[in-house]
């Protein structure tokens, strides 16, 4: 086992442990969904790091044979989809923020001006 495998597995373990600790402490930012997603992601990284053969088994089981590149390609697609979704979420939050700022500004529209028109 190489040093990289051990480091990667340790990093994954730290992140999973941190997520579980946050959940046990009932931190508001940690939900069961977030814990589940981060455990799956970091767990997969740990599994691939410690048992590289797992990636071949996965690619075989989903019909890609020994073609690991395809699996990496799918991984990239997943990352891009997540990135795109994140962008859309940020965009929605920005929009909500602008709406709030706008409502606050319009609330100060002088009433005498409204009445005079």
């Amino acid at each position, binding site marked *: 086992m190489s040093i990289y495998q051990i480091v990667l597995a340790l990093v994954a373990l730290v992140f999973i442990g941190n997520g579980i600790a946050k959940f046990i402490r009932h931190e508001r930012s940690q939900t069961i969904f977030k814990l589940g997603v981060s455990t799956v992601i970091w767990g997969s990284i740990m599994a691939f790091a410690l048992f590289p053969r797992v990636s071949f088994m996965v690619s075989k089981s989903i019909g890609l044979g020994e073609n690991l590149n395809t699996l990496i390609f799918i991984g990239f697609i997943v990352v891009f989809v997540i990135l795109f979704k994140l962008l859309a979420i940020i965009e929605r939050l920005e929009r909500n923020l*602008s709406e709030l700022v706008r409502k606050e*500004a319009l609330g*100060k529209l002088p009433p005498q001006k409204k009445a005079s028109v």
Partner: protein
Amino acid sequence: MESPKPTSVWVVIPAYNEATVIQGVISEIRSSGFTNIIVIDDGSIDNTQEQASNSGIVTLRHLLNRGKGAAVKTGIEAAKELGADIVVTLDGDGQHDPADIAPMITLIREGYDVVLGSRLKNCDGMPAHKIAHNRIGNFLVWMVYGLWVTDSQSGFRAYSKKALELIDTKTDRYEYDSEVIREIHRHQLRFTELPIQVRYTEYSMGKVQKMNLKNGIKTLIKMILSSS
């Protein structure tokens, strides 16, 4: 016989850190015969709001900087609340000549829903890099939104009451101007382009470059997101 109700024209000016020029812009608009003016201070860190308020016009302030598009939209909403029949939008840095407002309003009264001020119909004195940026912008707007205009990034525009009711924008920053083009196309609004005079002063050219490559890419991504 009862005379027809006069149309209420409001001029909306988004302004961000324009304290040194905003009073001049307001007085020029007044000199052109338009007194209904709304300035939206988009979270400036200088005293733009105080300077505008001293001119005795309607001044609103965004608590946070939300971008030119958001400020224009707030101004248009305010104008609608104040009973506007026609709204003209122009930039707060003094680059637009208020003398062009009257011909825009004439075109709206002739039946157009939107009048787009176009710098590229008369690009004398316009820096070459700005012409190039604009042409690229026009091409991208045409690709994403499907409507060809000669100046998709111009902030000098006039809207009829019908257009004010129908145009529904979602973006906040410089992509707003392009999104309006999408709305014109979507609602099949009657529009025309009017050649406008742009004054590239030392002040306006000295400001931090608003549309660089990074912002251009961000604008394109937001345009694609808003069109999907």
